[in-house]
């Protein structure tokens, strides 16, 4: 089992969610984050004076997947999230020891 942390542009969130749903992972968690990679920030202005917001709002999708689906998921996500411009985001793959579905107490693959 892996946990994927998928950081995407706000405007691609929907496509990524749909892609995940189509390959069997509708169950996800989404967090609003701010981030910075190679994409540059935004210039704003208040009462005549400009300033830079160095971080951009991004969305992080967390999804638990079976090891066997890793490649399929990676491909689907990249396809849905990529624009080719800086700021497309990243996928972090982290190991998960176990998962429990609270409602039933099921664990492991059954609980994904």
């Amino acid at each position: 089992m892996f946990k994927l942390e998928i950081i995407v542009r706000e405007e691609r969130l929907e496509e990524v969610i749909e892609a995940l749903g189509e390959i069997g992972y509708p169950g996800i968690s989404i967090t609003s984050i701010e981030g910075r990679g190679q994409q540059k920030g935004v210039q704003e202005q208040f009462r005549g004076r400009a300033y830079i917001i160095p971080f951009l709002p991004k969305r992080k999708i967390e999804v638990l997947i079976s090891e066997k689906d890793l490649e399929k998921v990676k491909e689907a996500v990249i396809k849905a999230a990529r624009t080719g411009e800086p700021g497309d985001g990243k996928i972090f793959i982290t190991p998960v020891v176990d998962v429990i579905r609270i409602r039933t107490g099921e664990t492991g693959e059954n609980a994904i």
Partner: protein
Amino acid sequence: MKKVRTFLVIFNIFLLVMLLFGFVSTALAADPTGAETLKENAEAPVDYVWVLVSGFLVFFMQAGFAMVETGFCRAKNATNLLSKNLIDFVVASLVLFAVGYGFLKGKDVAGFIGTGNWFLHGDSYDVGVYLDFFWQLVFCGTAATIVSGAVAERLKFPAYLIYTFFVSLLIYPIYAHWVWGGGWLSKLPFGLGHLDFAGSGVVHTIGGMVGLAGAMVLGPRFGKYGRDGKPRPIIGHNMALAALGTFILWFGWFGFNPGSTFSAHHLRIAVVAVTTNLAAAAGALTALITVYLKTRKWDLGMALNGTLGGLVAITAPAAWVEAWAAVVIGIIAGLIVVAGVYFLESRGIDDPVGAVSVHGFNGIWGLLSVGLFADGTYGVYSIEKPFVTGLFYGGGLGQLVAQLIGVVVVVVWAFGLGYILFKVMDLVFGIRVSPEEELTGLDIPEHGTPAYPEFQRQRTTLINAS
């Protein structure tokens, strides 16, 4: 960019002309002090107080529109909406002062346009003229600001600046001249001529129809229609602002309608206050219940639209009908708002705040209702005969015909010129922001300033979820 500069140059020339002009003459044929006017009419003070205080209330409607429109749109466009709602009144003030008021109330030329009163200078420097100008201005400002709702969340700010320039220079003043400036519509040989007590047509239908034109030229917002072509709601970010704005508008309407007698000596103002209020209440309740019957939810947004629809509809007949008729007019207004919102949506027209249904459609209904419900107890801004009488009170079809003609004229004039205006601008420089800007919201690309830098947080909605 270049167009903006051109605009600025024009604006500066305009100011310069104004200045030069200003210094030319100081001969005063008029009464700027007010002493003469007072001598002639010792009763004038109470009328001045009445008209000014009513005018202040109408001015305050600007705040109401700003809050309703901002509340009904998304947070990422709030600064843009607030800016537009500020600047339309600003531009209307300056343009109407310089030229527009002359077209509206200057010496009538062939029933079509007025001339004179430029820059409120010379002979126009008179307390009576200034009073009238102030009154006309707050009405023109209202007409201008209605449009911002219909074109919200996608119209470029400079395009809006130019639009406000033309609406307060030409579209509004000339039509208002026809109805209120002694122009041809007021002299129609049916009933007592086309009548529009406080501006269901002059103000609201004008605003609503220009807004409709704008919305059609622009096309719907990104995301308003799903891949399946079905309409999707785009959810307003702040119901507290929307409700506050509606209350402010309702409050301001007590200036708009009762003040339109332009005289406190018409005690009929008490009736106008009551009819105005009852139509608002009836519109609100009808919209609330109608949507409840359809969806089993008590829909605040539509109830607010219904309130405003009732107010718009009663604006033309307010002084000519009695209480129960106001309730009926309000009920129908509530139905029109609800039907109008669903209808436009189904036709692919995206009116983010319901401005066309509230102001455009109900403005028309208001004009017609004069021909039906006027009960012969008030004249043409006069407590003396002839009194206005509609179909249901034995007045025959005359007044209704006059109203119908006015309806056709206002729709053609406002929608026609509005469409041309937006279309020409679109061809010349493109009136819609880029797709990226629309996605980000207009606040940062156009104004630099997010409205709520510490609050904003997206909630995930899937446009194509069922």
